[in-house]
Structures are given as C-alpha cells and as structure tokens.
C-alpha cells in the first residue's frame, strides 16, 4: 500500500464510521514527507504527539484534543489516531492509538471547544464538572509497527498499554480498518453486535517487512489479526 492508498483507506473508513454515527469528529488524512518516507496521519505537525507526554495522563488526552491530533473521535469521545509511514508501495511503520475517553460527558457536545472545556474543568475539579461530565479513567492502547527498532526485547509489532515502556508482542501490523474493527469488536461489543455493517468494512492487509520474530519471553502475546471474524 502506498501513502495515497493508506490515506484513501483512512478517509473512507472514517466516512463509513460517520455514516454509522459512530464518530463525533474526524480529521482529514494528511500526507507529508518525513525524510525518505511518506507519512499519513492527521493534519497537524508531527504524528508522534502521543509519545511526547507522560503516557496516558489526562493532560495528554486534553492536549491531543486541543491540537486536533486525532484521526477520529468515537461517539463517546475516545480518541483514535492512525499514523502510517510508507516507503513507495510498502507500509514500513505505523502507530495506532485507541484511547478510551477518560471523561464520560453527559450531553453530546457541539464542537471540540466544548469538549476541551469540559475535560479541562474535570481536570481542574471533578466535583465542579460533575453536572457536565465525570472521570472514567482507562488506559490508552497504542499498537506500533516499528521494524527499524526491532530486537529481542522490542517486538516488531507491539502494544503499549498502562506504561509507555510496556511492549506486548502483537502478531502482525494492521490496516486502519482492521484496527477500527478490532476496537469495536473488543471494547464495544453491544455496538458491534447491533451494527452488522461494521463487520462488513473492507480490510486490507499490511504485510510484515521480514520474517516474524518469536514473542519476547515472559511477556504477554496478542494475536489480533485481520480476518478474525471471517
């Protein structure tokens, strides 16, 4: 898959999610040059914003919202971020973040500013914010495909959760559509069951660059792969 194809895949999946009323806001996929590679992500500088803060803090969540640093916000304001690096026709890295909304907002918000205001209020004083929203803290999950840094302690594809230096072996990289389907299939069972169109979203395969490494010893290992429901 080249960058254009990745951008099209992200754009059309977001459009599908929007038409199913599963997202609140989504951003235009943005392609830009990063050294010799072509990066596809959301339309802000960077693409590594999630890594620049203490992993999983409320401030980090708010900062991502304020910068518009997401691919889409799900209907419950959970963040979904997708960043892919392409070298010609190959995907050579990705970072896919699912951050369950740490704030349960009582009434739907009209724009991101309102959401930011609610989250900021919640951070400042959860009791003051209680008529509007309440804290609902859960750890973000980030699936990275990072073959350049792969070694015996650093799986080529891995999941960060709870801590930034936790890397749980994942069996293979994912397309954006696969990732979104996994998120809904795993964390939103009710939605998944009531919305059969989700399972029908077309997935594309992202191949590994080289032979798969063995999972790291004494570590969890995930086998989230495309076509689980096929």
């Amino acid at each position, binding site marked *: 898959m080249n960058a254009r194809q990745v951008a099209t895949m992200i754009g059309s999946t977001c459009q599908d999610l929007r038409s199913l009323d599963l997202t609140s*806001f989504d*951003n*235009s996929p*943005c*392609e830009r040059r990063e050294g010799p590679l072509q990066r596809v992500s959301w*339309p*802000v500088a960077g693409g590594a914003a999630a890594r620049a803060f203490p992993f999983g803090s409320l401030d980090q969540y708010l900062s991502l919202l304020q910068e518009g640093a997401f691919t889409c916000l799900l209907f419950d304001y959970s963040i979904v971020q997708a960043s892919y690096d392409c070298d010609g026709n190959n995907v050579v890295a990705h970072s896919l973040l699912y951050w369950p909304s740490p704030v349960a907002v009582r009434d739907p918000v009209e*724009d991101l500013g309102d959401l930011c*205001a609610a989250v900021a209020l919640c951070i400042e004083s959860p009791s003051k914010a209680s008529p509007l929203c309440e804290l609902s803290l859960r750890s973000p999950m980030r699936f990275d495909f990072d073959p350049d840094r792969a070694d015996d302690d650093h799986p080529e594809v891995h999941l960060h959760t709870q801590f930034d230096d936790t890397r749980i072996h994942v069996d293979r990289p994912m397309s954006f559509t696969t990732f979104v389907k996994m998120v809904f299939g795993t964390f939103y069972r009710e939605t998944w069951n009531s919305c059969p169109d989700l399972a029908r979203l077309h997935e594309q395969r992202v191949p590994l660059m080289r032979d798969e490494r063995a999972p790291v010893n004494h570590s969890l290992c995930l086998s989230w792969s495309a076509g689980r429901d096929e």
Partner: protein
Amino acid sequence: MNLAPDLDVIYGSTQLNPGLLSSIVQGLQQAQVKGTFYIGYPVMASADSNTTIDALLVSQAPGMVAFHFVETGENYKEAQDRLFYVLESNLGRHETLRQGRRLGVTVNVISVFPEGEVPTPADPAYPAASPSTVVAALAGMTGIGDAQLYRSVCAAIQRVTTIKPHKKRQHVARPNSKGSVLRSIEKEIANLDRWQKSAAIETPEGPQRIRGLAGSGKTVVLALKAAYLHTQHPDWQIAVTFHTRTLYQQFKDLIERFTLEHLGDKPDWEKLHIVHSWGSSSTDGIYSLACTTANMIPTNYLSAKSRFGVMRAFEGVCNELAAAMKGREFNVFDAVLIDEAQDLPRSFFHIIDSITKAPKRIVWAYDELQNLSDAGMASTPELFGRDIQLTNTPGAPQQDIILPVCYRNTPWALTLAHALGFGLFREKGMVQHFDVPGLWMEIGYMVEKGLLDDGEDVVLARGPRSYPKFFENLLTPADAVQSQGFNTSDEQYAWIADQVAKNLKEDELDPDDILIVLPEPITQRNEYYALRRHLDSRSIPSSLAGVTNDRDLFSQAGIVTVSGIYRAKGNEAPMVYIANSDFCVVGHELIRLRNILFTAVTRSRAWVRLCGVGTNMAILQKEIDGVVNAGFKLAFRIPTQQELEAMRRINRDRTAEEKSQIRKAEKSLEEVLDLVKKGIISPDAMPQLKEILKAMRDKEKPS
C-alpha cells in the same frame, strides 16, 4: 474627510505647555512642512533608561528632527547628544535604514529655549532656537531625499516594521502566479496612515472610540497603543480584550514585538494583560477577573450555554455580573483596550466601566457591519449607562476616530461587501443602511454624483486614497471578485475542490493561504464533511476551524482552513471561497444574513469566490453582476428615516417566540399546500388563502 493634509500632528502623552506646542505646529503648517509631527512620541530605549522624545518631526524636508525643550539649568548639549545617540542607535537596528556601516538617514536635533534665553554665540554643532525662530532654524537641517528610505523611516518610527513576519514563499517560481502577486503584496512597507497614527498614539483622559472598516488595522492600532501606553506608564495596569479567541496569539505577538521596539525588552505581563472577554477554565478573561474582584463565582461557558442558550450565553453572565457590580467602583485597571466591541454585550461595558479607574481610559474599536448578533452597536451613553460625549478638540488627543483606509480587502471586494451587506442592488429593496448617510464618506467612499442625504439619489465609489495602490497594480477586479452558481451542492463542492487544487498546483498558493467559509452555522459540520469528500479525493488536507481542532486555532501550515462564519471573524486569508452564499439571500432575519455575507467577503486579502446553489444563488448573482457591471460604483437612493425604521422592523432578528410562531406558520402553510395539491381542499372553499395573497401583495407594494 481630508485625505491629504500636509502635516499630521499626533498628540502623545506629554507634560509640555500646549500653547508652546500649538505655536510650533502653526509655524510648521505655515511653512507648509509635509510629514508627521509627533508630540511625546516615540519612547526609545538606551542601555540605561527609556527616553521619550519631546517632539519629533518626520518629513522628507527638513528631514527627521528631534525637538528638545530645554528646562532651566539643563545642559542642552548633553541632552542633544543623548537624544542623537538614542535615535541613531535605535534606527540603526533597521537594516533598511543602514547604508554600509552607518545610518542612511541624518538625525537632526534642535533645542528649544524660552523666548530670549537662546544661548549666544550660537554653536553650529548644537542648533538652538526659541519658539518663534524654531521653524526658520529648520532650514539648515539635512532632509531625506529618497522616497523609499523615507517610508522605511516612517515605519521604523511608527514601530510597524515588523508587523507581520512575511512568508518566504520560496517555491514561487512563476512571475505572474497568485503566489508571486501575494509575495509582492506582503513585501510592501507598512506605514500607518494619519488616522491609524492618531488612534495608536493619542490617548485622551477619558473614553475613546475607534470605528473602522474590516481590515482597516484596528487590531494593529490597539496593539501599538497597548505597547506605547505600557512603555510610557510601566506602572499602569493595562488590559487588552477581544471576543474572538484566535486573536489572543495575534495580540501577544504584535504587542511583544512593538514593546521590544519601544523598550528593547519584552512587556511586563504582570502589568499588561491580554485577556479574552470571557476566559476559560485555564485562562483568565475580563469576565472571570471581574467576578473574582467582585467576590462572585464565575459561570463557565457550558453552564452559561445551558442557561442562556448559545447566542446569549455571554450576555447572560455579563448581565448578572453587571447587576451585582452596579454603582460600585473596583479600580483594577488604568486603561482597558477593547477590540471587536460590536460583538460584546452592553453589560460587558458596564463591567469594564466598574473595573477601570478614573478618568476611565476605555478604548473600544469596532465595525458595526461585522456584527453577527441581533443587537446593533449601542451609542456611547447607552454603552456606559451614563451621559458621555465624545469630542474631538483641535490640539488635543481625539476621542472619536474613524479609520477609513482598508488595507486587507481589495477596493472591489469591499465595495461588493457593502453592496451585498446593505442589499443595495437587491431587487426587493435595500435591507439596511447607516443611520447617518455621511458615514459613507468617513469610511472612504466619495460621492461621484448626487447628494448624501435622506431620500436622495447618490452614486458612490471608493476614494482613490482609501486603499493601497498595490491592489490596482497587482490585481484586476475580474480576478479579485468572482461568483459561481451551481445546480447541486455536490457540484459546488467539486468545483471548489478543483479550484483549490489548481490554486495549490498552478497558482503557487500554500494550503493555509486558502479559506473556505460556510455561512450557515447549524449545518456547517455536515457541509464540511460533504466538501471534504472532494478535498480528500484530491489529496488536499483540510480542517474545520474550532470544530475538528481547538477553538484557539484557526489556520495551520499545510492545511486548507474551512470555517463557519463565527470562527472566520477576525481572521483572513488571501483566497476566500464562500460556499452556499445562497443561504444569505432569503430569510426572516435579513440583516443578520447580509452581515454574514459582508463578514465572509471581507475575510479576503486578495481573491474572493462567492459560490452557491439554486435560484437563490441566481438572485445573488444578479446583485453581484449589478455591482460588477456598474464598475464597482454604488448607485442607490438613500432611505429616509421612516424607510430605515421599516427596514429594521422587517429584517431584524426575531425573538425565540417569534421564531417559533414563524415555524408553526410555515408548517401550517406546507400542510395547506399539500392538501390543495392532493385535491382535498379546494382553494375556493378557503377564502383565507385569497386574504393571505392579498395581504402579501399589499406588503410588497412600494411605500
């Protein structure tokens, strides 16, 4: 409006004898000196202290002359040396003013002694004169021959050399591309006009009103004023406030740069406060600061919105606070500068009045036509709830200033914006008009034919000095203003996306040079996604300002900005597409709808494209064609006061109750129409239908 005076006199903050100054000003005017005579300005920093120049004449002949008014017992030669070095070292920082290793302009200094006290014999190295001989003594000074150098000197003295960091636009290769045109526009040296100079430097001991067209430099003027006041009075508590959140960064950058030029140092942010009118949970605003001062708990935006509705949220909380503060003086600020005053409720001004120390140095800048709410701009007594008269006294700082020159918009776009905003070419008649017809002249129009009076026919055109010349040199009306009608919304969005792609690929514009405005607030998100489908398919990244990113962000490098009308206010872009312009053509609240159109058109710094769908767009295109075919001249009859009243009644915004009544009536009519079409109701059996038609025909008859 006298557009070409020989000598502009700007009254800064000074303790000098007004009679003495007045006699010098008269002498300069009689000698027909052309240029600017600054009093109590500028302030310049040296390594040890700040120096306020008593008076400074900037002209091509006799040149740049600093006046030093000698106090009894003062060593005037030392004072002259000090002035010379501080001026030379400050000006020497500007690359454009240097020739090789030295300053390219001569700094002249003259000492003014009381009559009969001029030292003798004269020392030619240290010019000295009395008030009656000072003008004659200028004859021997060295002038500034080169016009370009003179403009650069003016910019340096006015502190506006760094108004905007220009884009490099290195990728621009074609000499006639739009990118190349923009590069030329951005290279122009910024000089303040005489009205901007007055507005920026003159601060009366009391309120001051600055009215200005969109793009007339109100924000820059207020930023300069804040920096100047802060430099002159470092112990003052000064607040700068505004309505559009995205202005914060603009004010901060400008004030920081201007203060740096004055003081050689950053502002003291403990004294100079840039605060949003409301504030947020993380940052103070005037409202939240005033609440704290009055021992009240500020209401946050989300609660206010649920209590008063989106449109009246701020007004609601301000009304509550103003009522609680009524009759009490809190003396927090020595001066308050308010931008976008047209968007702020009256009770906000009552709050400002309560927290500002006597003599109430409150400065407010506004443009009535950019008002997107239903309340018109109040008069000064209405704003403050007491009798305040604004007067302009010769020889003193002005209290009421109009900025008539529009630097942002091409004269064609501005004329079109006024024509559409007022509905001057509307088949069914004008929508709104100024209360005072003379205002047309004050905002830079000239009368080509007829009379500017109630009930009179008139033909108006932008005056030749009401816009910078580079527009005429670099752009053509046919390219600057275009309109396009479509059968479907999808066709419209596809066309806009094609044009944007062309702008990026062929015209050498950057994505952030482009702004697409969506005028209808309620549908903007869905419309954005419909448009984005076309932008995405052409690999054009976009964002919906404030909706898919934070409300404090407007444009981002590398991304095309799409914006609702409220978010677009206070912002600008070289290329503006207005999608769905037809939304502003027909409706019950035409004043607001037309103001939306005015605001959208005046976002453009060079090119504007009005797009829309269906028959309403065809109606609008007729109006646009009317303006274009008339050569951007506005021919119309000035309404009488009675007609104005009628327009306001018909086109005003409706209350929630009226809106609900209108919705019910529309629904009932639709039901009746449906029944008539189905043959269930015979029109003959319903005499009310004929009555409705008759009443409508009567209403449409010209009065």
